[in-house]
């Protein structure tokens, strides 16, 4: 037991450093995913047919291939066409574009779940199509998409672990280094698992609060 506590003391500083990197990657990727995913989702529903096709292909590409291959393509493949990215940049870009594909799909199904009468009523009071999307459809769709989006945010915390394969010193990257330094892989990966669970737990708490704040009777909650 004392050995384990000694080990814990030795590895914790490095693991905390890794945690900061993991949080950084997850946050930036989610935000990037949102910035890209929002217009992609809207375009998939309301755009002209050619645009829907192009965006559909993008979504299929990122949902249909392993994340690891996407990461390798961005980090090792792009330099072949003259685009060289740093490790962190490659991580942000890959996870961001990957997340955007998923976020766009959640938004798309939420947009389609808003009844057609909402658009009709908005147009009937003189709103343009874009005004109607912006002030009537989107505020409802975003709320409807929130539970699925929460799952995406939590999953993202764990997806980030692939970046250790391009030698980013995230939580998993640190774990790998420490595991070979102290010859104690089981103990260290166990500790790291606890770190991930703690991160996910905190994320759940925050997301539940957001969902509660955004609740509207009859839309995402009961009528009381």
């Amino acid at each position, binding site marked *: 037991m004392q050995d384990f506590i000694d080990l814990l003391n030795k590895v914790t500083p490095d693991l905390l450093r890794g945690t900061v990197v993991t949080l950084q990657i997850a946050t930036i990727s989610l935000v990037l995913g949102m910035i890209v995913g929002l217009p992609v989702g809207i375009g998939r529903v309301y755009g002209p047919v050619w645009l829907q096709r192009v965006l559909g292909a993008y979504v299929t590409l990122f949902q249909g291939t392993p994340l690891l291959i996407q990461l390798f393509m961005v980090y090792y493949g792009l330099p072949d066409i003259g685009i060289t990215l740093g490790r962190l940049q490659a991580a942000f870009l890959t996870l961001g574009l990957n997340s955007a594909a998923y976020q766009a799909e959640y938004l798309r199904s939420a947009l389609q779940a808003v009844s057609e*009468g909402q658009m009709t*009523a908005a147009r009937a*009071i*003189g*709103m343009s199509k874009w005004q109607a999307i912006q002030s*009537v459809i989107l*505020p*409802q769709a975003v709320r409807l998409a929130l539970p699925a989006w929460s799952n995406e945010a939590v999953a993202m915390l764990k997806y980030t672990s692939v970046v250790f394969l391009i030698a980013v010193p995230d939580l998993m990257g640190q774990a790998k280094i420490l595991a070979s330094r102290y010859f104690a892989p089981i103990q260290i990966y166990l500790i790291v698992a606890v770190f991930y669970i703690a991160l996910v737990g905190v994320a759940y708490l925050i997301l539940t609060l957001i969902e509660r704040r955004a609740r509207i009777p*009859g*839309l995402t909650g009961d009528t009381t």
Partner: protein
Amino acid sequence: MTSPILRIEDVHKSYGSLHVLKGVSLTVQPREVVVLVGPSGSGKSTLLRCINLLNPPTKGRIWLEDQEITAPGVNQDRVRQRIGMVFQEFNLFTHLTALGNVMIGLIKVRKMRKNEARDLAMFELERVGLADRAHYYPAQLSGGQKQRVAIARALGMDPHVMLFDEPTSALDPELTGEVLAVMQKLAGEGMTMIVVSHEMGFARQVANRVVFMEGGVVVEEGTPQHMFEQPTHERTRAFLRNIMQ
């Protein structure tokens, strides 16, 4: 004789090979209340959606006041702002309170400031007797209350004509009265209204004119008295006899 507020000339509407409106002409004077009746599928609702350009006609022309709204290049959003519409299914914005439902058009379309919009929205809610429900969400309102909020939302845009598409058909019978009372009050205030409805009591009391449509054409029109007591056409007689029972 004043000039008509709405003039519909030989309007046709097709969806693919389905010919719903087959040449409808109708002229509405300011302050007039016109009740459209007819069997389902006769094109009444389609005609309303043609008038406010939600589904523009495939052929024919429509004038609102002295503007031809079916002319190419017309700003359709502007036209819709001047034509209020109330739907059978209310279509209140689910994510907004009653007040928010009335305010949003004032802010986004009429470009009012928030305070100004709130005051006018409260005024419109008072007009339909729902000031005390201003902060309720649609899901917390009864059907009749929802429909009255929908009327307030349309009134907020300061429409010149109001279209009602079966405004009481989705309501429980005991809730139709409050909606019809608001509509009657509006008519009394001089609002020009075109109402698709099978509420014959309302038609008899409030309408200046009853128009009977069938198969995408106007079969007959006249005063309620004429239409209910001595319609010229056998089809009008048969239809009205049927729904009066």
